């Protein structure tokens, strides 16, 4: 019985790990969307985490815990740099600025020889495992749920609903937005490093516009009323291509169709219920 389970896990190991990593990316997106911001920089932050993590492991031979720490801290610092000037931008403008970040980084990776250029980095040791990935996911999900139910969650929802009204309640809207972006960058960076340490190979094109949109769609499908939404959205959209394998090239269309239908018929996402915002 356990042998059978082992076989199953082995056959579907990448999918199993991918589900957890994508769920962390969903939470990362949630941290931004829950404040009413639209960032398309999550893939870029994920890329920074993946490259930093890979370099720390490959070139410095550091223990995995340090790798993960660096993969969270460096994207967070990048978020501070890009967040200070761009968080004044709202709506599509922030989205465009963050797309820019992703494109700039992609070209930097492509043209930096020590980072492998277009070939990327390979031979990254498989240090991530189910315990680490799902342990971190459980931790982040628990903290997120605790946040939304506290006064911090109330402030976040207030900012999403009406920034000016939130300001006159004494809520420091700008620092909430910056903290949200920094936190989301750290989560995306961790997800990137975890991904690099089970797929053993990373390349510049994995963190482009397409990845940014698919991370966004995790949270859009799940809805921004509860972090559980982002996690379920990530699970669904990661599993779907596997289930739809017989459709071959039509799979991408199916994914897009689902997002369109959700936006039209379930604007609050598949998990549109609200968590109480009182402790």
């Amino acid at each position: 019985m356990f042998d059978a389970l082992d076989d199953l896990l082995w056959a579907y190991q990448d999918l199993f790990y991918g589900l957890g990593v994508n769920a962390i990316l969903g939470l990362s997106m949630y941290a931004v969307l829950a404040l009413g911001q639209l960032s398309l920089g999550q893939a870029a932050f994920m890329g920074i985490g993946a490259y930093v993590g890979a370099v720390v492991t490959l070139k410095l031979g550091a223990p995995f815990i340090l790798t993960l720490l660096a993969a969270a801290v460096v994207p967070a610092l990048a978020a501070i740099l890009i967040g200070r000037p761009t968080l004044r931008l709202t709506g599509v403008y922030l989205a465009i600025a963050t797309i820019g970040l992703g494109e700039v980084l992609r070209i930097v990776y492509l043209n930096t020889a020590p980072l492998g250029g277009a070939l990327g980095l390979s031979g990254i040791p498989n240090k991530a495992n189910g315990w680490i990935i799902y342990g971190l996911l459980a931790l982040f999900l628990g903290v997120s749920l605790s946040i939304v139910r506290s006064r911090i969650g109330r402030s976040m929802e207030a900012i999403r609903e009406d920034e000016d009204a939130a300001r006159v309640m004494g809520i420091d809207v700008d620092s909430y937005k910056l903290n949200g972006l920094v936190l989301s960058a750290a989560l995306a960076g961790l997800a990137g490093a975890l991904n690099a340490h089970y797929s053993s190979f990373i390349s510049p094109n994995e963190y482009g516009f397409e990845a940014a949109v698919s991370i966004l769609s995790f949270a859009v499908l799940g809805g921004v009323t509860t972090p559980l939404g982002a996690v379920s959205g990530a699970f669904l959209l990661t599993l779907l291509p596997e289930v739809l394998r017989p459709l071959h090239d039509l799979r991408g269309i199916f994914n897009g169709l689902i997002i369109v239908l959700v936006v039209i018929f379930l604007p609050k996402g598949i998990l549109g219920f609200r968590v109480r915002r009182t402790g």
Partner: protein
Amino acid sequence: MSNPVLEALALHKAFRGLVAVDEVSFSVREGTVHALIGPNGAGKTTLFNLVSGLLPVSAGSLRFLGQDITGLAAHARARRGIGRTFQNIRIFASMTVLENVMTGMSRRLRQPWPLVLLRGGAAGREEATAKQRAHHLLDLVGISEQADRPAADLAYGDQRRLEIARALAGEPQLLLLDEPAAGMNPTETAGLMALLQKLRTDGLTILLVEHDMGFVMELSDQITVLNFGRVICEGQPEAVQHDPAVVEAYLGPKVAQRLLAAKAVKNPQACP
């Protein structure tokens, strides 16, 4: 004479070429209800936005409790003790009524976030006290039975009362009310009047914009009249309502002259 809570000194706000607030000075004394009145477009709401910090001033200065607040951001002013409501109701529609009020307490909830996330001990007690106070405030404005309903479902007058409860939740020293009686029926207006009188008795200072003149005249201690962004008159209610400049601003020069001729306006030139 009590101390001024708020002093505006030559406040000026221009939107490109349009001067919305022009060299406006006034001061609001502690424990009074001070009304800002004037025809539509006189600059009352812009003035509110300048005082609450949602708009930066073009020139002039603001002092609150003796300290300069001209350069402070809106949230910092709220933390110093300036609360406000909005003319076009801006409750948080997706939240419950109770959560709206608790959000208004943001500046009063001080427990550090790690404790808040663990929700135990002092943070848990703080949240429990906040909930209790929120219920009490809903009681005060008379909508406590609606505490757990989504705020969007409230009737219009109740949404106005919720906005007042939410603003009071921050325990402000100065409360800015932008047309609190708009859209209320006479019974609701009377209830609001009683509430504001009680708040004043409790020591709250109120700066009020309102178009219901009966309401303004009965409630206010001091009235500043604006027209085209300028102060055209300031004084106590009896003086202001008989000032020819005020009558003219509201009714136009023709009617004003007829009223003056018929001696319907008593004591002209009441306003210096």
